[in-house]
């Protein structure tokens, strides 16, 4: 019988609107403090887009020595490389003490949106004398006015490639693109890679920023953004009666996953153990149908089965809590149907209001919260939750953090489009 290798978390590297590193993020989460602000610094001049969780202080030069390589990096890539540096440092890993062929990368990323000013040059040179776009003019004059390596900044696999290049990581390398579930799946897939012995250490997580014109326009078209007027730090309120959609954020998170033997051998500090992972797809066509929660329920069940645990073993659930009303309701129904008998013991939290919704990157930072609850025995409150939506009746942690022993924490991440992923973290 093959014995499965145990996998533990030995480092965190995150860049969020709360600041650099996991400490300011954890502190903000514990205090239910949102980093969402008025979106003026983005310079969008759009009356319809008011609030966002932005990285205002982020300077890639602090993390990346090779200045020339920064030119090849979109913001998403810069954040991911910075997060990878922080993660390795936090895990006390440096090229001198790891075998580069036994350490790999799995990140969750989506389509990286083009910078409109960058590609705009090419399209403007593709206009004919009447100011109309002409494909022949674009072919002749437009294309050659683009930055020759422009394309490389926007391929979805590039964050994982840059992270491997920047840190000399020559093990397995993968990029998962399953919507908002992508980063959580990336962590789950990396866990499998170590478990089966293909690597000893994996950097896993994700990166995303939709705080650009192309990204925001998609969310507006899909009607997924909150449009309420309220103080910026109060506006994003999953599971609350007032919930009316997403507030976008940006950031990146990378966890250092490591085989238990490897961590023990080098005497690494362990934050938590990754004990289970499950994924599924929603089965109905209409993602807006609040009654269809079977897919979400299956992901939750699969992750617990993978960890050989029962619902009653779970102390903390870091819910997806996107703030989209029908998604919050679906998730509540799924959680209710699975955990109802254990509600006396279960603590449910949701942390998206702290940073804004990181979309493809969301699981990468929320996994840090789930893992830390097992380490610290503290559960952050659901920020901005005053009156829960009556259809979302879960045992939420409200107003302030709860201190209690946490042996098992589960993270739910659901993507629109119907991708579901759950991870189980165990105290180690």
């Amino acid at each position, binding site marked *: 019988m093959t014995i499965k290798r145990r996998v533990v978390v030995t480092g965190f590297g995150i860049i969020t609107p709360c600041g650099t590193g996991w400490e300011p993020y954890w502190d903000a989460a514990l205090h239910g403090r949102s980093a969402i602000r008025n979106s003026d610094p983005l310079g*969008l001049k*759009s*009356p*319809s*887009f008011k609030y966002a969780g932005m990285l205002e202080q982020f300077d890639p030069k602090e993390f990346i020595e090779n200045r020339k390589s920064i030119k*090849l990096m979109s913001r998403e890539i810069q954040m991911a490389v910075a997060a990878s540096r922080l993660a390795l440092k936090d895990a006390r890993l440096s090229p001198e003490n790891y075998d580069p062929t036994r350490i*790999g*990368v799995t990140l969750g990323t989506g389509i990286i949106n083009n910078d*409109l000013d960058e590609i*705009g040059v*090419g*399209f*403007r040179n593709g*206009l004919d004398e009447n100011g*109309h*776009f002409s*494909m*022949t003019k674009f*072919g002749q004059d437009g*294309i050659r006015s683009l930055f020759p*390596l422009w*394309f490389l900044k926007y*391929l979805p*696999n590039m964050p*994982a*490639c*840059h992270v*491997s*290049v920047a840190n*000399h990581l*020559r093990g*397995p*390398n*993968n*990029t*998962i*693109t*399953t919507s908002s579930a992508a980063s959580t*799946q990336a962590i789950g*897939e990396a866990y499998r890679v170590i478990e*089966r012995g*293909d690597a000893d250490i994996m950097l896993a997580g994700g990166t995303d920023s939709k705080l650009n*014109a192309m990204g925001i*326009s*998609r969310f507006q*078209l*899909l*009607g997924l953004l909150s449009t309420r007027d309220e103080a910026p730090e109060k506006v994003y309120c999953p599971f609350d009666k007032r919930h009316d959609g997403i507030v976008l954020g940006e950031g990146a998170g990378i966890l250092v996953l490591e085989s238990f033997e490897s961590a023990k051998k080098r005497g690494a500090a362990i934050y938590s153990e990754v004990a289970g992972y499950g*994924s*599924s*797809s929603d*089965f*109905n066509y209409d993602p807006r149908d609040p009654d269809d929660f079977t*897919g979400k329920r299956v992901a939750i069940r*699969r992750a617990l089965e993978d960890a050989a645990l029962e619902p009653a073993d779970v102390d903390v659930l870091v819910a997806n809590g996107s703030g989209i009303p029908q998604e919050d309701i679906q998730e509540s129904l799924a959680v209710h149907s699975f955990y109802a008998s254990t509600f006396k013991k279960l603590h449910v939290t949701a942390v998206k209001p702290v940073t804004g919704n990181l979309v493809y990157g969301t699981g990468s930072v929320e996994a840090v919260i789930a893992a830390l609850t097992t380490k610290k025995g503290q559960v952050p409150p659901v920020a901005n939750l005053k009156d829960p939506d009556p259809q979302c009746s879960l045992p939420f942690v409200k107003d302030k953090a709860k201190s209690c022993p946490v042996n098992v924490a589960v993270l739910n991440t659901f*993507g629109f*489009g*119907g*991708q*579901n992923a759950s991870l189980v973290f165990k105290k180690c």
Partner: protein
Amino acid sequence: MSKRRVVVTGMGAVTPLGNSVRDTWLRLTQGKSGIGTITLFDASRFSTRIAGEVKGFSFEKWLERNPPLSCASRSTFFALQAAAEAYKNAMLEPLSVNPNRFGIYFGAGDSGIDFDPFIKTLVPSFTESGGEIVDKGKYLEYASRNMSALRELESQPFMTVTHLTRLFDIRGPVSNCLTACAASSQAVGEAFESIRRGDADVMMAGGSHSMIYPMGVAGFSLLTALSTRNDEPKKASRPFDKKRDGFVIGEGAGVLILEELEHARKRKASIHGEVVGYGSTADAYRLTDMDPEGRGAARAMEIAMEKACIEPQNIDYINAHGTSTAVNDSLETLVIKKVMGDYASKVPISSTKSMLGHMIAAAGGVEAIICLMAMRDSVIPPTINYEEPDPECDLDYVPNTARRTNVNIALSNSFGFGGQNICLALRRYDAS
């Protein structure tokens, strides 16, 4: 307890050479090229005006039956068609597999920007002067009027998988990876691992992609990666030939049904072959160049062989990544020599990209199918357009005509732009 064995019971393909495995395979063995002048948009002033387009594909057939597909991307349709063929080929039906034990690991590519509405939004948003080229406030305003929410959603790579899971009632594990040119090979490898681990009994795997759109062709052109042999499209993709000058973009989908051996035997499915090895590594060298020593690619091949418990002399065929770029083909030759040692000059190697072009994320899935067909028919498809030997590429590339020979074990290489290397090991199924 030994690991669960994983076999292939279904295959489906949509390629520049045909809209089924049968048609594609027939033309591959005849050494036909699927490359032609671009018709999908006006590329007349682009430096590269050729590609391998899918031809005669019936989008209507899918639309009639499935109204929710009205805004689906081109490559999603290819994926559905190839998946339907693979599903049928595997003789699957709703009752033959428990949907909760039926998963998917796919390598679906993105479909670029929805071009016309984008232009309609962008052009009026140009600023008159100043550092900013585009007024973002105006862009957001015009986008809300000109763009279609559903088309924007469908352009995301995960939507292909969403459609596949719904149409084929796939309720097991779900994932989609997008590792450039290695994506669908990686998806097959990961699906293989899922079944071995016991997470599913049946997995749909493979990929779909079309990058034959203005920004795709422009992007690769600027990287000087594409062939500009516009006057001789059928001769443009010439892997390992001395006069190769870049790759030719192809499009399509390749889908495999992977199944746990006992599950396949119980339902008396016909078995096309066995997946026995999968290696994944990164170059971690430089974004714009492959590692000149090919260490990552060589290691991926070695890992696949180690997992499969095979030695170089056991290998009967290598389906090369063979893109027809100057660097890839000489470096891949070096890598094969490094891994295969003395046996390198004896193993037949071919690049089917010479005929299909480079189907990017979809390439590896189709190439795995080609390896299995080579086993079935004991025929190795050729590398066409091989006219002038390159001293740096001095192995047996099965030039220009297919070769009849027994194939029991094959390797399929896929190397992604940015340095991901994937190798799959496939083996003829032996019932004993």
